[in-house]
Structure formats: structure tokens, C-alpha cells
């Protein structure tokens, strides 16, 4: 098809052709279209992600309480926070919440998943019903439980009184309230780990288990040596996501303790400093420190996940 004019002729033809391209054709070429499609996202994220970040960075070097004009104070905010006991206490509480909730969700979730992992009649209905707590709004969930756990007429306390317990003030005593909140969180999120594990168990290769069965391995041995290692990536996914979400725990507190009774977790502490005490300098510094800690934990866990994915294959 090419004329005998040689490469030069083809070149000139193609440049001629290129000159005639419309603006749209240029934009539709791969080089441009990929960024063109990205513009809305980049603009929006640029404004909504970078602006708050730089504002916080700026304010964190200033003393700004209420509407007073900000005063430059260097690193004083950082120094003050890193030496403040309530801050470290709130970090400790968040860490406790993360450890207890994630631990409970993984052990209970795996147990229930192993139990439910079989074909039975009505399994889709059971599955659908069990998933419902996941879509309940965290605030509505906490108000629901607040009613059930009411000291005088909450149904839990009435049931406890039947078996001879006295009233328990679940949400107003010091260590208890935090554990009550952990219980609510676990109730809401347990279905998540159950169904991640069920999906994982259904995808396990059957032949390895048949071989183990033929070799007469005990079910505990099979579980420990076969199932658990193969589930490791899934356990890591649950840990990664749940840790990220639990660090940001604050909605259920609005409905229940409002940070009282020893339940002031990290995000509630930031909220209290920034929006109740209205100390913007310290509040923004706290927010940045919290963001920094979250990213570090996120990256560390993400690496573990990649590693787990590598060994499982």
C-alpha cells in the first residue's frame, strides 16, 4: 500500500495528516485523554485535601484560641502536646480499643465463619440478615444500645436482674464504659470479619485438605498447619481496614458518653480541644499528629499485608 517514495514520503504524509487533526482528536490521544479525565479529581482533591493540610500546618505553629489573631509560637504546640498526659491517655485508650476490638472480631469472626461454612437451606437469608448491622449508621447504633443498656429499664439490665445481678451502669462507670463502646463496635463490625473469612474459606484449594484428610491429619492440625497460614492475607486485610477505621472512632461517642467516663479516645480528644475548647493552634497540631500516626501505622500494616500476600502464593 505504501508508495515507492520511501520513508521520507510517508513521514511527510503523516505530518500533513497530523496538522489536519481537530482539537478533539488531539485531546482524545492517549497522552492527553488520561490527564483530561483526571482533571476533576485532581482539582477537587487539591482543594479539599491540600488546603486543610496546609491550614493545619500553618496553624500548628501559632497560638490561636477562639477568634484571637494567631500568634507565631514555633514548635510550642508540638512540645505541649507531646508532654500532655490527657493526650497520651487518649492515645492509650485508642490503642486499647483497637487491640481489643480487632482481636475479638478476628477470633469470633473466624470461629463463626468456620461454623457457618457449609451449604445449608436458607443460607442466603441467614447471610443477608447477619450483614445488616454493617449498614446501620454508627450513631443510630450507639443510641439503640444506649436504650438497651439503660441502668433502670434497659433490657440487658432487666435480663441480668433475672439471674440475680444488680443494676450495671454500663455507660457511666470508668473502665466499663470504654468496654461497652468496644462491645457496640464489635457487634456492628463482627459480620464484616465473618463474611471476609467465609469468602476466604470458600476460595481455599480443596486438594490440599483432601490430602491431609487421606493422611489422617487431625482437624486441629489441619486448621493450624493449612487453614490458618492460607488465611493470613485475609486476616491482614481485616486488621489493616479495622485498625484504620477504629483509630477514627468517634460517632458512637456522640450518642453515648460524649467522651465522659474514661472514654475519651484520640479523635474525641481532638474534637474537644478544637471544637469545645476552641483552641485552634493545639487542635490543628493534634490533628496533624493523629494523621501522621495513622499514616505510619497504615504503611506498616500495608507492608505486612503485601508480605502476607507474597508468602501465601
Amino acid at each position, binding site marked *: 500500500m505504501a508508495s515507492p517514495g520511501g520513508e521520507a514520503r510517508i513521514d511527510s504524509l503523516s505530518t500533513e495528516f497530523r496538522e489536519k487533526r481537530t482539537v478533539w482528536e488531539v485531546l*482524545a490521544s*492517549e497522552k492527553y*485523554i*488520561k*490527564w483530561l*479525565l*483526571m482533571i*476533576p*479529581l485532581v482539582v*477537587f*482533591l487539591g482543594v*479539599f*485535601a491540600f488546603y*486543610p493540610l496546609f491550614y*493545619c500546618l500553618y496553624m500548628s505553629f501559632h497560638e490561636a484560641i477562639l477568634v484571637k489573631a494567631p500568634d507565631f509560637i514555633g514548635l510550642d504546640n508540638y512540645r505541649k502536646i507531646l508532654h500532655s498526659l490527657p493526650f497520651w491517655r487518649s492515645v492509650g485508650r485508642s490503642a486499647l480499643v483497637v487491640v481489643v476490638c480487632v482481636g475479638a472480631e478476628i477470633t469470633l469472626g473466624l470461629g463463626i465463619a468456620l461454623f*457457618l461454612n457449609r451449604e*445449608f437451606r436458607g443460607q*442466603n437469608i*441467614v447471610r*443477608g*440478615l*447477619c*450483614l*445488616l448491622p454493617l*449498614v*446501620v*449508621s454508627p*450513631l*443510630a447504633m450507639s*443510641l*439503640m*444500645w444506649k*436504650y*438497651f443498656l439503660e441502668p433502670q*429499664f*434497659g*433490657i440487658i439490665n*432487666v435480663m441480668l436482674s433475672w439471674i440475680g445481678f444488680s443494676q450495671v451502669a454500663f455507660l457511666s462507670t470508668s473502665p466499663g464504659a470504654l468496654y461497652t463502646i468496644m462491645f457496640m463496635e464489635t*457487634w456492628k463490625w*463482627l459480620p*464484616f470479619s465473618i*463474611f*471476609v473469612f*467465609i*469468602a476466604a474459606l470458600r476460595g481455599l484449594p480443596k486438594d490440599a485438605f483432601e490430602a491431609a484428610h487421606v493422611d489422617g491429619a487431625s482437624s486441629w492440625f489441619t486448621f493450624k498447619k493449612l487453614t490458618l497460614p492460607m488465611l493470613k492475607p485475609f486476616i491482614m*486485610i481485616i486488621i489493616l*481496614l479495622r485498625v*484504620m477505621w477504629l483509630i477514627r472512632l*468517634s*460517632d458512637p461517642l456522640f*450518642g453515648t458518653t460524649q467522651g465522659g467516663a474514661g472514654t475519651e479516645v484520640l479523635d474525641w480528644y*481532638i474534637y474537644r480541644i*478544637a*471544637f469545645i475548647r476552641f483552641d*485552634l493552634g493545639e*487542635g*490543628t497540631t493534634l490533628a496533624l499528629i*493523629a*494523621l501522621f500516626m*495513622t499514616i505510619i501505622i497504615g504503611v506498616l500494616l500495608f507492608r505486612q499485608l503485601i508480605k502476607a500476600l507474597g508468602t501465601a502464593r
Partner: protein
Amino acid sequence: MRRVIFWIGVAIILFVFIFPIAWIFVTSFKGRTDIMVPTRLFFVPTLENYVYEFWKMPLLREMKNSAIVTVLSTAFVMAVSLPAAYSFARFNTGEGHLLFFTLTTRMFPPVVAAIPFFFVFKSWGLLDTHIGLTLLYVYFNMSFATFLLYGFFREIPEELENAAMVDGYGRISIFRRVIFPLIAPGAAITTVFCLIFAWNEFFFGYIFTRTVARTVSFGLISHWGSVVVQWGPMAVGVIFAILPTLIAGWFMQRFIVRGLTFGAIKG
């Protein structure tokens, strides 16, 4: 015998997850005195809580506000995320760095965004408006939607597109005839997730609205004053706050695990 034990176990699991939700439905029909006796199973059902919520409290307006903001923000998110996710999946735009950054915006404490935007919104008169809240919901749903859609786009084989291009289709007709039909189910799932997340959001609504654009979640916590808690009306509020998401969740059940793991696990 084993089957009996199995079904007892299933019953216990179902009871734990469903009873609280069912019980709050029952409670909403209880009168003032019956509410204080939670174990009373047989009572005269009353609609007084519903009447109170819909006529005395602004629940209807709150639901309208939540619906407006939820739908608007989701439409906006999809309009921004669909092209971006397509670009990420098809051209690997930004070599993964931009995608990773998009994902990290979800790690920001909501307070980080709330403080600066509170002042910006105040000076622009966006506090307590639907538009202001919509923008914030777009911000907090966008990274999730982009990442989930990215996964769905990756499942569409590139050859399909190339074949269409060889056949002389332009970008727009490829998108309309080839990509769109294939991404539609994934886009629908992502849309429902955005709707659920936006409807359930509380913190931004609480900080950025007062009366005009007040959301359902905000309305819920106004039921307890300093002394008295209005349990009955609160139960009604809780029901209307969770009913839309429960219905959505029931129809989405096959995709919930997939969505919540950002597409990592096909449940």
C-alpha cells in the same frame, strides 16, 4: 443431632445480630409507660411517637435534607470518580502514586478537614447549607468510590477496547457502546455504597449544619436534653435513620464485603 446443634448455633447468631434491630422497631410503637418496661411483650401499640416525630419534631425535613445531600453528593462523586478511575485503570495515570494519594485522603481525621473548612464556609456563607454539606460528603466519599471503580474497570479486558478502536470507533462511542455496559453493574454498586456512607455520616452534619440543612443523624441526638431522654421518639428517629440503609444493604448483600474491602475480596 449435629444438625440440631448447627441450627441452634445459627439461631443464636441471628438473634445477636437481628434482635437489637427488631427490638427498636417494636419499641417505637410503645407508649410512654411501656417503654420503661422493656420486657412487656404484649402492649397496646400506639403511633404517638410517630405522630410526635413527624408533627412536632423536624424529622420529615431532616430526612429531606439528608436525602438531598446524599443524592447530590453521590451524583457529584460518580461524575468525578468514573473518569478518574477509568484513567487510572486504563492508562495507569500517575504510576500508582496519585492513586495511593487518593486513597490516603480517607485516613485524614475528619477534624482535620472540619476546622479549616468551618472558617472557609463561614466566610462564604456555606454553613448550614445543602451545598456546603454536599461538598464535604463528596470529599469524604471520593477516594473510596475512585478506588472501588478502579477495581471494576480493571476487570474489563483492554482487548475489547482495542478491538473497537481498530474497527474505527472513536473514544466517545467506545465508552458508550463498550465500556459503559460493562461498568454499569460496578458503577451501580459503588453508587449504592456512596449513598449508604453519605446517609450514615454524622460528624460533618453535626459541625456544619444547625437548622436549615440539619441531617437525620444530627436530629437523632437532639432527643436527649440535659435531664430527660425521649426514648420513644428517639426509637422512631433511629428507625428512619437506619431503614433506607437496611433496605439497600439487603439488596446489596452479595457485594457488601467486596465494597468494604475496597474491592480486595470478592465475597
